[in-house]
Structures are given as C-alpha cells and as structure tokens.
C-alpha cells in the first residue's frame, strides 16, 4: 500500500540479513514451512529435552511388552507384596507383576491419544478454515455451533457418550477427538481470517479456483505454524483425557494392562504398595511434560519465524 512500508521492509530486511549473516532458511525447506519450524525448534534446549522424554516414553510403551519379564495377567506373588527379585516393583492388588503391567500398559494410551488428536485436528482445522474462508452466515453457524460444544466440559461429554453407548475404544477416540475440534477450530479460524484478507486468495478466486482448493491449497499451507502448535497441545490434552477415562473405568476393561486403569485398581492400597500407582502416574506425567515441552519449543520457533521470515 504505502510506499514507505516497502522502504522500511527493504531496509529492515537488509539490516537483519546483514546482522545474521546469510538468510536463515534452507532452500529445500522453504516450501515446507512445517519442516523448517520443526528444525528450528530443535535448536532450543526445551524442545530437545521434550523430544528426549517423549522418545523414551514411546520406547517404553512400544518395546515394553517385548521385554516384560512376566505376562501382564500372570500371578507372581501375594497381593500388594513389595519389591522382590521376581517382581521388581512388587505385585499389585491382585498379585500381578506391577513392572510387567506397567510395560504393557502404555501402548493403548498412546495410540488412543494419537488417533483422537488426529481426528480432532482434522475436524477442527476443516471447520475453522471453512468458517474463516466463507465468512457470512456459514461462519456464524459453524462458530456459534462451536461455542455450544465449547460450553460442555470435555470429560463430561466423553463420559456421557461412553456410559450411553458402552466402553468402546473407537468411541473414546471419536469423543475425545470431538471435544478437541471446537478448540482447534477457533484457533484455526483466527489464523485463517488474516490470510483470507490477502490478495492471493482473491487472485485464486478470480481465476475460478474451487472453494476446497482455495482452503486446502492456498489457506492451509499458510497456517502451518499455529497448526503444529495445536497438534502438540491437543496431544497433551488427549493423553490426560484418555488416561482419565481409563481411570474412571470407562476405557479398557480389566484384566487388560493400562496406565489409567492401574491407578484405579491400586488406588485403595496406595499406602501399602505405592509403586503400583506411582509408576503409571509417573509415566503419564512424563509423557505430558514431554509433549508440552516440544509444543512450547515449536510455538517459540513459529513465533520467531512469523516475526522474521514473513514480509
């Protein structure tokens, strides 16, 4: 618009370029902003610690069942007996090996959370970007509908569905994902609204690009930074929610090994055999802290990019 805006930009970019040496971007990453954000975020200590924790926890969940000394349902000693050479962290309330159950119990939480996150992100991004692009009545309809779902506490909604239909895993994925969607939608609509006003969207309209192509081809690649942050954030919440549902007894059913369920089963004997509660709590806690650290790093990298890389 005003000429001096370009003057300032040119000078500022010149200054920054000269200060930081070469342009910070890597040629092949330019088209894939998300790769470039991830790479930059890895330069931050917090992200590295987070990634370390997450890799460690995922390794436990995935490889745990292979190295577990016992079957998760095998009785190894007296109920609530303490650590011994046979059972490293003792036996649980039913006399099963705490350590083996712990090694077996992470995978379900992980994949349920990942699937719920994916579902929530896809649904939410779709709704948010469509609302941002359409403006007008469709925007109002989608976002007011969104508000209705937002007013529902997530856990109540999940429990309601699970008690009504039954403790099915697919139902947990759907409902947890569904509770994420309105939150994601609101963020993505906000990010999209600013992009929609730019002329390249009009340039696409004037040549007759289809609506879905504008949303996926023009809009989506320009909102990758908030999207990455949302993925991390929703993953953290998913882990908490899925574990919470299991703890309340609406997730996996006994005798399956599961972190949430382990806490539930052993909560009464916590003073006698604390390991059976402490280990799964630690696992869930670490996983959440890890994903949170990664998300935070990504968010910082994305902000840095938005400040310096755009023009």
């Amino acid at each position, binding site marked *: 618009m005003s000429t001096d805006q370009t003057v300032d930009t040119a*000078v500022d970019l010149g200054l920054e370029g000269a200060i930081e040496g070469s342009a910070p971007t890597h040629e092949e990453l330019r088209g894939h902003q998300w790769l470039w954000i991830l790479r930059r975020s890895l330069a931050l200590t917090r992200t590295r610690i987070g990634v370390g924790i997450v890799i460690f926890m995922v390794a436990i969940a995935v490889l745990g069942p292979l190295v577990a000394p016992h079957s998760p349902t095998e009785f190894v000693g007296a109920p609530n007996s303490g650590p011994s050479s046979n059972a490293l962290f003792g036996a649980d309330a039913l006399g099963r090996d705490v350590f083996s159950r712990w090694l077996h119990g992470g995978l379900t939480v992980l994949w349920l959370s990942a699937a719920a996150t994916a579902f929530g992100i896809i649904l939410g991004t779709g709704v948010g970007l469509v609302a941002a692009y359409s403006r007008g009545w469709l925007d109002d309809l989608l976002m007011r509908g969104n508000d209705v779902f937002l007013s529902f506490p997530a856990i109540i909604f999940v429990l309601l569905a699970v008690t009504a239909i039954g403790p099915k895993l697919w139902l947990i994925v759907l409902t947890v994902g569904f509770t994420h969607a309105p939150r994601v939608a609101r963020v993505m609509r906000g990010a999209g609204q600013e992009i929609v006003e730019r002329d390249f969207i009009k340039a696409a309209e004037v040549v007759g690009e289809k609506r879905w192509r504008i949303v996926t081809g023009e809009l989506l690649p320009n909102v990758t930074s908030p999207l990455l942050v949302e993925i991390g954030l929703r993953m953290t919440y998913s882990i908490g929610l899925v574990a919470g549902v299991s703890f309340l007894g609406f997730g996996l059913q006994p005798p399956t090994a599961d972190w949430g369920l382990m806490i539930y089963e052993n909560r009464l004997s916590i003073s006698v055999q604390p390991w059976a509660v402490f280990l799964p709590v630690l696992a869930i806690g670490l996983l959440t802290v890890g994903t949170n650290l990664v998300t935070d790093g990504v968010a910082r990298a994305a902000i840095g990019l938005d400040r310096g890389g755009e023009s």
Partner: protein
Amino acid sequence: MSAAEATPRPASVDVEDLRIALTGTDIDVVDEIALEIYPGEVLGLVGESGSGKTTVGMALLGHVRRGGAVGGGSIRIDGRDLSALSQGDLRKLRGGTVSYIPQDPGTSLNPALRIGTQLTEILEAHATSMTAEQRTARLREALEEVALPSDDTFLKRYPHQLSGGQQQRVAIAMAFANRPRVIVCDEPTTGLDVTTQARVLETVRDLCRSHQVAALYVSHDLAVVAELADRVAVMYAGRIVESGPRERMFSAPRHPYTRRLLRAVPDIAGKRTVVGIPGHAALPGNRPEGCFFHPRCEFAQDDCRKAFPPVTDLGAAHQVRCYHIDQVAREAPPEGAGQADAHQIGANVVLAVQSLDAHYGSRHTLFDIDLEVHHNECLALVGESGSGKTTLARCVSGLHKDYTGKVRLGDDVLPQAARSRSNLARRQIQYVFQNPYASLNPRRTVGQAIARQLTLFEAAGGRGEVGRKVSECLERVALSSSAANRFPDQLSGGERQRVAIARALAADPKLLVCDEVTSALDVSVQAAIIELLGKLREQMGLSLLFITHDLALIRTIADRVIVMTDGRIVEQGTTERIFTAPSADYTRKLLANTPSIEVALGNVTAPAS
C-alpha cells in the same frame, strides 16, 4: 537561488561526514553524509527504497533505528552537537527544537486521546514556562496556522473523526506548535489524495517560510520535491550522490543516477516514455567495490570500479560524486526521453460495461457506469480514494458480485460472480493486484504459481511441457527462468509484480485489469513495469483497464481516460484531450493539484486551474 546566498546566517542543520553503521560490524547503512539547511529553507532528500533517506532524517532527531549506531561524523542542530547531548537533553530537543511530521498520521496520532489533549501534551512537555492560558492560546494558533478550526468542538474530537488530510494537519500543527528551528518531514503526503496533498504541502511551505524553520523533506516523489524544495539532495545506496539548487538539479543534473531517475518519472505536462533503471540498488553489506552505482551505470569505466568518487564542486552549491561528469554532460539531456509512439487501436469492443450500479451492503458505491474498452486499447480509470475505481475493476473481474447492470465480454453478458462465469471468460479477463507483496502465495514457488494458471486454463501437457511454458512466461516479463524455483520473499517488489503479470499472461487473456499495479513500487521500478506493459500490449494485442490515482502515469500509458469521483464518471475522453482541454471542474482541480517537475520549473504553464 538558495537561502544560503541571500542570508549569510549560521545553518540550522549542519551534518558533517555522518556515518551510521550496523551495530558490531563495519557495514554502513549511510556514510559520508554532509548537508546544511538554513533557516526558512526546505531541503528535499530524495531516494528510492533502502537508500537510507529515512535513516538520515531520523538521525537529525538524534534517533537511530534498532540494530544501527552512529559510527562517526557530527550532527549539529542549531549549533548544538547531538552526540554531546544526554538522553534527557535529546528528549527535550525532540518536539522542541527539532520536530517531526510522520508519514502516516493515522498511526502516529493516539486514537484514544482527543486532539486538544494531544496538542496540550506537546506544549506541556516543552513550553514549561507557559501558563495554561498561554498554552490554550498557542494551541488554537497552531491549529489556525494549518487552516483547521480551533474551537472547542474540534479540540474535543478524536483522530478517527477526522479525515486523513485533517489528521495530517493536526500532526503538522503538533510539529510546529513549539516553534521548532528544524523540522523533519518523512513523506508526509504519501498516503493522501492529490488535492489534500497540494494543500498540505502549501501549509508546510508557508509555515517554514513564516517561522524561518529549516526543513528536511524526505521523499521518493521527485515531483513533490520539485514543487516544494529550495535545494535537493539525491541519495543512492547510503550516499548523497548529487546535491544542488532545485533548478539545476532538475534541469541540468550531472550524476548518471539522477538523470536516470528523472527519466523514470512520468509528468502530467507531456506524454513521455518513461525508462526504468535496470538492476537493483545494493543493500548494506552487499554493495559493490568502487562507485555503488557502477553496475547499473551506462558511463561506468574501470576507475568507477575501484573507489567511490570524491565530491566534485560545480559551483553554485551544486555538488556531484561521479568521475565522468563531463562525459555525462555531453549526452542528451534527460528530457530526450521523447514522445511515446501512437499505436493502433482496434475497432471491436473487448469489454463493455453498461449502466452498472454497485452496492457495498447498504451503501450505493457506483452509479450508472458505462464504458467500453477496445481491442489493444489502454483505458485508464482515474480518481481519488473512495471514487469507486477499484470497485468497478472488481465488478468487471467478478470479485465484487453485488451489482446490477451488464458487464459484456465481446458479445456475452457475464454473470456477476467469477465462479459462475465460464472458464473462457475468466481466462480472458485477468486481474493484476496493487500490492505484489500480498498477491502471491508465500508458500508457493513462482513456477508453481504460473504452472497452476497454465493447468487451469490450458490443456496442460506433461511436466516438461508445463516447465517449458513457465520459462516462456517468465522470459516474457524479462525474468530468467531460474526465477521459477524462487519463493516470493526471495524477490524484490518489482520482480514480484513481474511474476504477477507473468501469471496473468499465462492465461493468454484479452483484457488485463491493472489495479494500481505500480503504487507500491519505486519510480525506477514503476517505469520498468510501465515499459513492460506497453511492450506486452503491442506484442500480445492486449487491452488494458488501468486503474490509478496518478495522473502523470496515465499521460504516459493511456489512450483514453475516465475520471471518476464518488462513484460517478465525471468525464471521459482521449488522453490528449483530458490533459489539454479538460471539461469537468473536477478534472481541472485534479490536474492543478498534481505535482509536476515541468510546471514547478516553469517549463510549461500549469494546466487550467
């Protein structure tokens, strides 16, 4: 005649050998800046993007932008060396002895404070010895000086209740309120319409004269500087390459850059071919050895590549930094740009708009518009902001759907929305946007953007075929085919606009709608884009609908002109007729208010006023 000769008083501004470098490096942003401004004198500091003109302007306020620091030289304001002043003294200086008129009053005035409060603040900060009554009196006086009402109702207004021109006047009143000795104007009229601009410029000039204020007027607009300044200094890549009295600078410039710059400026006084400057200005840290202009200079020889030329004094305060001024002087003068050729306009109508009325919500924005664009014709739509010219362009291209009346392409009446139009119709009308920084998707390479256009509108062949066609499109706008792999943020503004044009042409259109396509660009780049559009029109038999607020530009490119105001057409006719014998009062007013180098120098008489 400069004020220096007339009154041998000490200069209000005396800058010597000023150097501003990037912090912690020996890369300079500007260097060897020397200038003097005498009381009552206006010095025009001209330069293109990144030339460092704003940096110099800010330095007079004792301010250096983040990332830079003064690396040498001295700035004396009213005899006081700024480097010797403490932060507290500098604060007292700013707004008191030196004041500033910003570019955009819309962002420099505090939207939450009343006009009266903001003016009082300035006075309270500096005129501490004044009583409240004296302040109020001064405040009203300041407003009267800029021809604004000074009654209480006006003082109680908020900035958003004023027009852009009024806001700028308030900013000027604030700048002059403390009776400064020096004033720095940073393109204060860039965002304003010509009519408003003319009045603001007059106000600034009169106030500088009457209060004997020395003014530094920073601008990229040579015509404005020609009308306002007593002396002119031209900056290129952080150096002043030429400075001198206004008349000599515009009629007998000696530096090759000044001459090229003048050839790039269109003028309402005559139909002339504008010529761009090839290449781009080097940014700090990236400047060539020797004279910074040599890679773009037609006179460059070996000595130019070795060291930056020293200052040559030509007498009469005219100084230039070039080794080959004698050779430059022998060349034809810049006016030699000559007349643009007339060209053949086809008889058949490509686009016709018939009794079109448009609405924005409940607002009626266009009234009964009729126009025709012929084959190979360039029709210019001119008007000030809010005249509806862009809305009309958007109706034509199907971006604005809320209209009644007919838009015909050839024999077909087009549906309102671009989406409901046939692929052929969309292909034949292509739109080039104002701001090339916003019209290209930052996540897509140039090649992808053009290839998409090709696949939309042509039976695209294989990948190799598309790649070859993309290269062809880029060559047509004088970009190398390697640009296909670049992202928009790796290109300059001019290059981006070329890409936008290349993308439009990839569809092989009949009509190109150009919406202020050069207003975000520097003059030398603007000239190059205008040259390009003229050439493409000949080659491809294009028709152009050229929307602009710049009358001078129209004289250079357009065959016919439509003048619009408040959503109505007030006059239309051939370009020659509109410029030599305008019939509508509004057109006459526009012409009279458009700054012109030729008129300012007295080479031609002003158009009917």
